[in-house]
């Protein structure tokens, strides 16, 4: 082959290669096309590194949670864990990667509530029921609404009152059709408040917008904003979890303040649906051991303002069904209201 033809030929083959695999990639994969592990492979599990797919960018709460768990699970299961970030389309890109992976236990998804919400809003065609859940590993009970430190409303009730008195005036930083949008709608439904949703971007952009007085209310994880609450820039009107927690400075819950809304962010592991039960069980056992008994892990997880909580596969699936139904009812009620 002439040397000057080498590059175009190489490129053409790269194109063909990626083209073929890409097309094969999104073709509907049914269980029969996937390569199921043999009995001896199941017995040997795990005998090579396990890949955790994180469907968000590196550096966020999901990513940090996965990396930390991966490190301790690796010690527990005597193998190594590799975290791969596949961001995009609100988490659907990375979730789909696991959905369509070979069910051999070497590719596992680590994700949160958004998997359920994406389906409810029609952004994806699958939810937790299309996977085999290996358990919930981590909870963040610190979902909170924060306001400016010198705002005239400093509790959930005062905030609701202010929002009722000036309908459509107080702005709420959110992503339309996202987790925080559900929180806003639940708050409006429970109190009769009327807020103005404004998209300002991700968690850090929300903090900037509140610092710059461009929005009035920001829904956020307590851990991200603890410093601002401590120095008085911001104030938390309450947390959305079922009970107060020392990790979140014992901030009163919305429930305690008489506003009936409750949101908890949960992080779970999920395998492709066809994965053999024996493999999932082995993974879950290791997860339970790390989450419940590994003090070094627990301490570090709490330093990220998250609470290590193990929920076994069946119970986790039921829990996620319940959460999904409550979100669905909320969306339905609001849609009928709008009509």
């Amino acid at each position, binding site marked *: 082959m002439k040397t000057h033809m080498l590059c175009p030929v190489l490129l053409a083959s790269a194109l063909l290669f990626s083209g073929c695999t890409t097309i094969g990639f999104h073709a509907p994969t049914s269980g029969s096309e996937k390569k199921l592990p043999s009995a001896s492979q199941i017995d040997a599990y795990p005998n090579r590194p396990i890949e955790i797919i994180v469907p968000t960018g590196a550096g966020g709460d999901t990513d940090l949670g996965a990396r930390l768990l991966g490190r301790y699970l690796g010690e527990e299961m005597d193998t190594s864990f590799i975290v791969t970030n596949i961001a995009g389309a609100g988490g659907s890109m990375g979730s789909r990667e696991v959905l369509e992976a070979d069910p051999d236990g070497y590719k596992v998804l680590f994700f949160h509530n958004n998997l359920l919400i994406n389906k409810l809003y029609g952004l994806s065609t699958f939810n937790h029921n299309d996977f085999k859940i290996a358990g919930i590993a981590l909870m963040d009970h610190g979902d909170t609404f924060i306001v400016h430190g010198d705002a005239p409303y400093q509790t959930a009730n005062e905030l609701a009152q202010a929002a009722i008195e000036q309908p459509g005036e107080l702005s709420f930083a959110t992503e339309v059709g996202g987790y925080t949008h559900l929180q806003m709608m639940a708050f409006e439904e429970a109190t009769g408040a009327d807020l103005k949703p404004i998209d300002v971007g991700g968690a850090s952009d929300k903090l*900037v917008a509140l610092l710059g007085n461009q929005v009035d209310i920001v829904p956020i994880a307590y851990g991200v904003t603890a410093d601002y609450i401590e120095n008085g820039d911001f104030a938390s009107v309450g947390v959305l979890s079922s009970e107060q927690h020392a990790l979140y400075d014992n901030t009163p819950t919305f429930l305690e303040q008489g506003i009936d809304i409750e949101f908890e962010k949960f992080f779970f592991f999920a395998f492709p649906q066809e994965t053999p039960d024996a493999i999932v069980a082995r993974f879950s056992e290791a997860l339970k051991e790390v989450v419940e008994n590994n003090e070094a892990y627990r301490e570090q997880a709490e330093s990220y303002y998250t609470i290590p909580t193990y929920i076994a596969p069946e119970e986790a699936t039921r829990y996620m069904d319940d959460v999904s139904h409550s979100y669905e009812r909320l969306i339905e009620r609001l849609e009928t209201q709008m009509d």
Partner: protein
Amino acid sequence: MLELIETGFLSILNIETIVIVFIGVALGLVFGAIPGLTAVMAIAICLPITFGMTPINGLSLLMGLYIGGVSGGFIPSVLLNIPGTPSSIASTFDGYPMAQKGEAGRAFALTIVFSFLAGLLSLLVLIFISPVLASVAIQLSPFEYFAITVFALTMITSLSDGSMLKGLIAGMLGISLATVGFAPIDSYPRFTFGLPELEAGFNVLPVLIGLFAITEILKTSSDRKQIETKNIQTAYRLKDLGLSFSYFFKQKWNWLRSTIIGVTVGILPGLGGSAANIISYVTAKNQSKHPETFGKGEPAGVVAAESSNNAAIGGALVPLLSIGIPGDGVTALLVGGLMLHGLNPGPLLFEQNGEVMYGIFAALLLANAFMALLLIIGMRFFIRVLHVPRHVLLPIIVVLCVIGAFGVNNRLFDALVLVLCGVIGYIFAKLKFPVMPIVLGFILGPILETNLRRGLMHSNGDFLPFVTSPIAAAFLLLAAGSFLMAIRKNRKRSATI
């Protein structure tokens, strides 16, 4: 203040930390120099390694990688006309022609000196006045961002290489490419043709590396004469170049302007080093008394491009290290790095972890110096790349580009995008369409749309605040002025033909 910085230096001036910073810079330079691999990737890969280190050591490594990763990108820009990272695209415009004239050594010398100085100045800005800058930056609302982006988009007119029409078409193509995938704000899928791969849209890196690296490789390999190794005579060592002090001193205002642009663009979220690089190049060209020499090996072009991307580092760190808020991909990863070591980003970062924070500043200054040192030592080896036969070198680069594109998001789809963009770039080059406007449209289009829609959410659908906010109005006027000027220039040119 100075005492604190002294404490910072004391905490990093031990053999272990110095070695870690050195390794970080060296590794960063390698990632920067390889087309397709970037500082973001270097940091993402090394983040887990810092788990086991002390906070100071871990963060020093990441800072070294950051500075090295941004600085190394110019090497293939100058030698091969292929940018090593998106933030050294503009460095190819004059760096490569310089190398073709046998002045690769000079281009390296200019880059090293002014990258170092720009990095230094931007770090001093970061250390001494970042709280002030950050408090100004947080006051900017979507209205101002929209106007600033419109102004930046008018740069397309200066990048059109003669035909305004072709430039605008290319710019619109760039904006259109960026609309593929879920829309900002309401996540409505656009141009996905039912393919789930397209839902996430096109990533910047494969598009840019495709348009530049792959296109360049296609161009070279389709021309037999180019494949044969040219024997370009050039000096390899700094001291053999015979450069006088005045050669550098001439660039002082250009350097200062480019550094200021770099720091400013760096602070604004979303734009980043690649936009800084292009904007300051265009500004230098427009401000020059002899703009016609740009693109033909003009040292001022190299200085403008390379000062600004290093200056953008200090800028991007301003919001992160003063109020604990990340502005771009790299700084978002650095937040992860801070959190891994129990440092919660936020306004109390300095009160609670002052020693670590000033240690980071010291590590950045040290990394900046190592960067210059490594490049001065390394340039005599890098420049020899010019003598490696192209048919050996280019296939290797293709492979590295594909690996880099895959590494962005671990999807083969991105490698496909890379190759397709290379082919598009090649067709554009054959039709004599400029490629730069595609890039500018692709980077700025989504920022423009997002801020337009966010602004409209703020104002309940009212367009008026876009022109009544003083800063926004000023930028829109500037944009209109710049556009009219370009039209006039274009008329004059067609009149003389």
